């Protein structure tokens, strides 16, 4: 199993391709950073440590040992509600596909991490704000089902604005579908780890993101149920700067650990190693 060509190609486009010579401004500290330097620093601002949102291609490359076999990639979105507002839903999907080079909001597959075979799901905010529709639900469910069959640990990187409006209740029900798959997967004694990246909210946050054995948060990520704006509108005042950050959640006891991007792979490798256990737990 090696890194597939499409993943290598798309990744290189983001990492070293046409954008390499441009400049990027850090949205947190306003530092202007040379694109190439930013990529070399794993898209983390060298000045304030702001973690830029990461493309799924780049994330997969960062996490796996140069091998990845996708599953569910041929599952593509339909238009069950025949949704149309300013644009039709298929038009929106086409635009996002063009912009992000993704076919949907998550890439799932199998690979190894520091030698440990794993099932891996990576959501990408660049496709419809990482919203969860039926395809995201189906791909993750297939991942969990396959991982269960193979008795492999599963790691999912979340990044989501919540359920996808344009698929209505079919989108909401993916919370139930994925939770069903998580339940079976975990009740068989398999390890489930979620890594919550910026941003993780709504129906993703309120389902599989917080159903795992170990909840890892990437440094500085915004994580919550309701969006910041919704809360501010409800209470009619500004929220403190650190509200809903990974660091805030650590203090509030919601997440097991906060990990910097550069430390993510070794941290996950250690968790995978611990999960090999030692004592047989007969039931």
């Amino acid at each position, binding site marked *: 199993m090696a890194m597939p060509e499409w993943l290598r190609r798309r990744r290189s486009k983001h990492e070293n391709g046409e954008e390499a010579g441009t400049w990027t401004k850090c949205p947190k500290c306003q530092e202007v950073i040379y694109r190439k330097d930013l990529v070399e620093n794993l898209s983390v601002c060298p000045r304030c440590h702001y973690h830029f949102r990461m493309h799924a291609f780049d994330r997969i490359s960062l996490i796996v040992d140069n091998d990845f076999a996708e599953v569910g990639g041929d599952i593509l979105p339909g238009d069950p509600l025949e949704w149309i507002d300013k644009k039709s839903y298929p038009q929106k999907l086409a635009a996002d596909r063009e912009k992000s080079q993704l076919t949907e909001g998550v890439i799932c597959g199998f690979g190894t991490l520091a030698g440990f075979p794993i099932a891996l799901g990576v959501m990408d905010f660049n496709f419809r704000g990482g919203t969860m529709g039926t395809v995201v639900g189906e791909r993750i469910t297939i991942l969990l089902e396959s991982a269960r069959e193979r008795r492999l640990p599963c790691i999912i990187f979340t990044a989501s604005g919540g359920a996808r409006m344009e698929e209505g209740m079919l989108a909401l029900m993916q919370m139930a579908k994925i939770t069903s798959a998580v339940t079976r997967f975990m009740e068989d004694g398999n390890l489930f780890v979620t890594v919550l990246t910026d941003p993780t909210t709504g129906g993703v946050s309120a389902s599989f993101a917080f159903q795992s054995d170990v909840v890892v948060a990437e440094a500085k990520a915004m994580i*919550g149920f309701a969006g910041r704006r919704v809360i501010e509108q409800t209470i009619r005042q500004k929220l403190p700067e650190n509200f809903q950050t990974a660091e805030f959640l650590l203090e509030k006891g919601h997440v097991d650990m906060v990990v910097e991007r550069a430390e993510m792979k070794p941290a996950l490798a250690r968790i995978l190693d611990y999960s090999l256990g030692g004592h047989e737990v007969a039931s």
Partner: protein
Amino acid sequence: MNVIVEREKGLLELEKRIAELRTLNANQPVDLSAEIAALQGKYAQIQREVFGAMSPWQRVNMARHPSRPVAGDYLAALDRFDELHGDRHYRDDPAVIGGFAKLDGRRIMAVGQQRGRDTKENLRRNFGMVTPEGYRKVKRLVLLAVRLGLPVVTFVDTKGADPGIGSEERAQSEAIASCLYAFCSARVPIVATIVGEGGSGGALALAIADRVIMLEHSVYSVASPEGCAAILWGDAGKAEEAASRLKLTSEDLHAFGIIDEIVPEPLGGAHRDAAGLIAATLQRVAVALDGLRALTSSRLLEERYRKYRRIGAWQGRNRETLSAVR
């Protein structure tokens, strides 16, 4: 202002006039039967016009009607209800009522989201918007039901989970997620009824079930129409438009296979015959429970899994083909 309440005004006016004429007719020699009949005809005609083919937005308003029966009304109509309180950790959330109950002799665990019937009760019950402690209470009661072999019956009625600062600080996401997990893995039958507004994940947390029964004019939606409009168009005022797109009516959801059956409401809505509607709903619940009783718990879990497993719509290869490919 609720558009249904608005529209009811003219009808209430007519009702009053008909009643007046009737009194007059009874006490006076003049025969007003013809006038009464005419008014009644007009009344029926308007009623059909107003309620005969309601738009999705009108459905939303019907689901939110201040006189619509609330979860507590269903609980009160059970043979017996012994409320159990609290999450054992932090608080008893008044937006959720739950406990042991009996439905025509069947022992069950009943849980519902409770909107208030007036402003005072709404403040106390947070308009039925559940906080993390409420979801943890639900989870606790579901686990207790599993221990005792009691089927779970839920009454769903919420705009959505509470979006306040405190709820975020006390891990609303984790609370809902744990609740979903508990419902997915519960080895007892679960019957959910959507009796009012079913708003997003906050409603789903009580609605993963072997049988989902929905009242005709209830709505059940990925987000409240206001929320959807705000998210997509940055304008909560476009709620009516959102409602029209979201496919949130009982008929739409039945067509998608998301709910299993619809309880018809009287013309004008559930509150026009609350007692009858509640009895009819509980009757449906009883039938559903009896149908599930025969299943072993493994079979129950298997069928529940399949039921949610198949919800989805996408292009490309279907699940079976994919299985073969892997």
